[in-house]
């Protein structure tokens, strides 16, 4: 599958996930957004050698995945985007930081290895959290939540419209690429002679389409902002969820939970 159809199917998959129903889906979008941000901030704030402390943080996404009725494995595919960059930065650490961190029998674990593992875990955990947010929250609810946070309406409207049009554009470009490929067999990409005209043609057509779109929006009474009628006020469950999560993150960050747990069993 090429990049374009890949992106299309990913968008569809995320839409389908967000449209299903579970206790997590029913939570207020603003609460989910705040908790996700708190979670990621907590995860990245762990010191670079403290991977034992960081492990506890895995419980939040894992539990939420189960409550949302989404298999954890669905988000693993997305790791292909995150891990290369994180690895590129992290992989040099073992070579540049050879300070021994602990002795496991004859094996010396260096600080570099520990910081690399911690870095990768941070990458994976924060990816899981933002995946959960978008897999349980439809785009318009998220935009409504952003509006509640006083994000300018021009930005949220633009976000919604762009999101709507990305599907259309991906399809267009995908059809065009397919047609081009069929006419240019054995060629890897767009030839230099068509560099400008390929996307340029589509751009010109789309700009005209956008004008028509705007005219039709005006005829339907558009005045610069969409209205989100179906976002109910935040219920008590949402507030409790937010408070419990934030408190749990604070405890996990300040109390070395895993060490205490381990202390129970190791002398």
């Amino acid at each position, binding site marked *: 599958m090429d990049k374009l159809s890949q992106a299309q199917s990913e968008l569809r998959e995320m839409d389908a996930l967000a449209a299903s129903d579970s206790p997590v889906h029913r939570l207020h979008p603003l609460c989910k957004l705040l908790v996700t941000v708190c979670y990621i901030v907590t995860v990245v704030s762990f010191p670079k050698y403290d991977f*034992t402390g960081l492990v506890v943080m895995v419980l939040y996404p894992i539990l939420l995945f189960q409550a949302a009725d989404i298999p954890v494995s669905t988000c693993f595919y997305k790791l292909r985007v*995150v891990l290369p960059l994180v690895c590129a930065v992290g992989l040099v650490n073992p070579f540049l930081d050879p300070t021994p961190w602990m002795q496991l029998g004859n094996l010396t674990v260096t600080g570099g290895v520990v910081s690399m593992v911690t870095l990768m875990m941070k990458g994976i955990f924060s990816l899981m959290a933002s995946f959960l947010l978008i897999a349980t929250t439809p785009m318009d609810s998220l935009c409504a939540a952003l509006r509640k946070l006083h994000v300018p309406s021009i930005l949220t409207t633009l976000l919604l419209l762009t999101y709507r049009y990305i599907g259309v554009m991906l399809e267009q470009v995908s059809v065009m690429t397919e047609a081009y490929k069929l006419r240019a067999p054995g060629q890897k990409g767009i030839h230099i002679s068509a560099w400008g005209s390929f996307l340029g043609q589509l751009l010109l057509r789309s700009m005209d389409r956008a004008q028509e779109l705007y005219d039709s929006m005006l005829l339907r009474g558009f005045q610069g902002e969409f209205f989100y009628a179906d976002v109910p006020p935040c219920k008590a469950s949402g507030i409790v969820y937010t408070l419990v999560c934030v408190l749990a993150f604070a405890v996990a960050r300040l109390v070395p939970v895993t060490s205490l747990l381990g202390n129970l069993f190791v002398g």
Partner: protein
Amino acid sequence: MHMADALLAPAVAATMYAASTVTVGASVKQLRKDEATAKLPTMAVTSALVFAGQMINYTIPGTGSSGHLCGGMMLSALLGPQAGFLSMVVILTIQCLFFADGGLLALGANCWNMAFYGCFVGYYLLWKPIMRSKLFSKMGTKAAGRSKIILASVLGCIITLQLGAFSVVLETSLSGITELPFGTFVGIMQPIHLAIGLIEGLITSAVLVFVYEARPELLMDVNTGDAAVQSKYSLKTTLMILAVVVAVVGGGLSLVASSNPDGLEWSMFGNAEAGYSENMGLDEEDYGISSGAAEVAGSIQEKTAFLPDYAFANSDSAAGTTVSGLVGSAMVAGAALLICMGGGFFRKKKIAANS
């Protein structure tokens, strides 16, 4: 160049969020003055197009590889810097949310590295001066326009990408994430992005030249006979502006990268480290030993320990804490695995019951 959350410390991420938020605020304010609502659909469609367009592979002649489009320069040439910036912010947000390309916390930094430089620096320092200059005026209007677009896009992409790559290095180093010395990191990132910038610039210019020939009025600052856009800057002024840009960017980068890498490295990592432990209010030596909860746990531990007096060879007290940390971590990981498996089990049961 999308940064992941793990590459940033919260303080750096917050700073970059603040910088990007201020730019968004200024752009929104500026746009409201000139009919933002009328521009909205065009912005949305163009940013969706740029998003999809970035996935097209362009064959680079003579090589086996392919290049991609540069979003920032193209959007600001079509929509202007403020609208272009907002469109880029939206593209980056969607990439982050739906495609895991760049993290949620790193969004502020990504907007700055890619959208701010691409739109504002690219537009005000390169696109506008070059397009309004009298450069290539001997070649005739059409040919001069083409040449100016190519020059502006290529220079714009190269310089904005260099600035972006440098910011990535700076932000990662300030976050104390990598052990890679600052100078080496810069030395790796800048040349790579020089080549990428050149290719992206050429592809972007090809698309913009096509638009220029078909519908020049769609581009910003293009001379279409409109008096307001008539050549404003003389050749001399344009060259002066360009020289200043090149001097600032090139000089700044080389100064930071090579003059005293060790000193810089020391100050960065030193400060980052100090800031880190201060921020957390934690002392690593003290970690997990002196808290009240630990003492309570200690009393329970004597009764429950299944590995009493167990220690590894040469382990001192710090390593001892580490060991319990490891054991605890393994237990948490095991619990997580169990939860996953349990969830999967119930899901399967539910599916079976439904069918």
